[in-house]
């Protein structure tokens, strides 16, 4: 209980710190944001009115508090790349679904494919099959996801015509077509991570299997399979969960690049476009969003640890 409270306080502090950093970082950019938004031929009056309207004359802490108040309500002001006509929150909301689906599908693929492969590789240690899996994982770990995305487009889009490149169907229009298109970017993100996960899982399992309790179980006549599923897997869970949590952050980073290749209207593409257009309200909001997600994932992982490992609860 004490542990949970402590972790909750850390969570709130981290989120607060992240918001302060995200906000102040974008205040050091040289240039006048009113001039940026209105263009070079804005009159002095227009600039003044703009600054007045968006509170640019207030002090830094006041502006931060106003920004945070908005942020907590999901309001990040208006987007300058859309001439202040569209709310940042609207832009993000539309794209969030795409990115979440993409990240979710990739994560699912990683878990479903890598866990059986990792177990197989550890069980058949030193066999031809294991060497083969090792070599293949080594190669796939070296392929950047966005290059893989291009290869998938080339092979499945252009040569085999399983999907039409660039022909993304929104979720609410046709779910089947949406999923059929999304599976390819998800595979592009997942493959290098699957390779990493298989390698990691194999070494985690082998390390666990070299411990004394496994030898004891064996000497008592337990079969290898029972030892693996009843003891080893449970004990290997902690490092595996840590690794999966790290992968989640990596998957989010992967979506930024892969969305670009597949022309998906997701958060990552919005982020890159906003950086190129110096639309800082959007950049700030997306960064704060992703950073918060990473912080919250780490928080949840800490909670899961103490739930699955009683040793952590006692101290």
């Amino acid at each position, binding site marked *: 209980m004490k542990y949970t409270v402590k972790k909750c306080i850390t969570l709130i502090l981290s989120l607060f710190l992240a918001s302060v950093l995200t906000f102040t970082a974008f205040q050091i950019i040289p240039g006048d944001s009113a001039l940026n938004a209105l263009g070079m031929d804005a009159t002095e009056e227009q600039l003044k009115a703009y600054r007045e309207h968006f509170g640019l004359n207030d002090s830094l802490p006041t502006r931060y508090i106003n920004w945070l108040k908005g942020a907590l309500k999901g309001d990040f002001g208006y987007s300058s790349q859309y001439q202040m006509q569209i709310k940042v929150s609207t832009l993000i909301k539309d794209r969030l679904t795409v990115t979440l689906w993409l990240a979710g599908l990739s994560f699912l693929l990683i878990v479903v494919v890598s866990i059986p492969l990792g177990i197989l590789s550890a069980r058949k240690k*030193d066999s031809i099959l294991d*060497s083969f899996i090792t070599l293949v994982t080594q190669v796939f770990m070296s392929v950047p996801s*966005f290059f893989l995305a291009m290869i998938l487009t080339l092979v499945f889009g252009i040569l085999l015509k399983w999907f039409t490149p660039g022909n993304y169907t929104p979720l609410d229009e046709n779910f089947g077509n949406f999923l059929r298109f999304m599976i390819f970017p998800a595979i592009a993100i997942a493959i290098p991570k699957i390779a990493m996960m298989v390698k990691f899982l194999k070494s985690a399992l082998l390390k666990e299997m070299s411990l004394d309790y496994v030898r004891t179980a064996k000497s008592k006549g337990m079969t290898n399979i029972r030892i693996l599923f009843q003891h080893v897997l449970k004990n290997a869970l902690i490092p595996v969960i840590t690794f999966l949590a790290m992968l989640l*952050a990596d998957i*989010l980073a992967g979506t930024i690049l892969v969305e670009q290749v597949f022309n998906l209207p997701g958060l990552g593409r919005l*982020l*890159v476009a906003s*950086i190129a257009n110096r639309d800082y309200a959007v950049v700030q909001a997306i*960064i704060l969003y*992703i950073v918060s997600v990473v912080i919250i994932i780490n928080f949840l992982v800490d909670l899961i640890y103490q739930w699955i490992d009683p040793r952590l609860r006692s101290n």
Partner: protein
Amino acid sequence: MKLNRKNDHFNYILGLAITTFILLVVLIGFFYTPYDPNKMNAALKNSPPSLTHLLGTDNFGRDILSRVMKGAGTTYIIAVAIVCIGASLGTILGAFTGYFGGWLDEILMRVNDVLISFPSILLALVFVSLFGPGSYNIIFALGIIFVPSFARVVRSEFIVLKERDFIRNAKLMGANSFRIMFVHILPNIKRVLIPSLLIGFNNAVLAEAGLSYLGLGVQPPQASLGRMLSEAQSYLLDSPWYAIAPGVMIVLTVLGFSLISGGIENEYE
């Protein structure tokens, strides 16, 4: 176990072979390329690989082999610069915090933990949006972003080694802390430092490729592997060889270095 040993060794040799080949191509590229990598030729647009242009030409009729040779060179220089910044600052930071410990260590390691949990490409994007795109900016940004990973590795080694007898002896002989850290301890951590330098190089190559692909790294007409991939994407239909050449170059680079680093780790075990 025997087969495993042999396999590891085979992987190590394979890594060395791939890396030697790649480095040779890049080194030659610094002095000689078959064609001028930036010379356009309207008559030869998007021509497939042939004897005159081994890897074909791109949408401006530029020779892809020449561009890959030069582009990989650019990518490598950027990656080496990033690793130099990250590794030197990280080693100093890790050495001091690991050797002396104390509250500064506590604070720096907390900051480290936070930074490590964020993907480097995301931090680099924040940096680029603040200071603008370009090769120097991404070297600086990624160099700083790579500091925590080196600091962590070096620190944990220093914590273990500072308690060892030979360090105590050196202390008794009157060696000062600076000497102990950099003359006595540092040479003993190369077993972990060299693999992490190689992996760091790989991560730098991948990060450069990613950022340049997004148009935020190396700017045209300069070629880099990521830059070429982003240019190649629009021509995937007409000239797929354009994308494959720089992509395969990235894959071979990363594969070679990670096989070597795995081999070194096994060697020391």
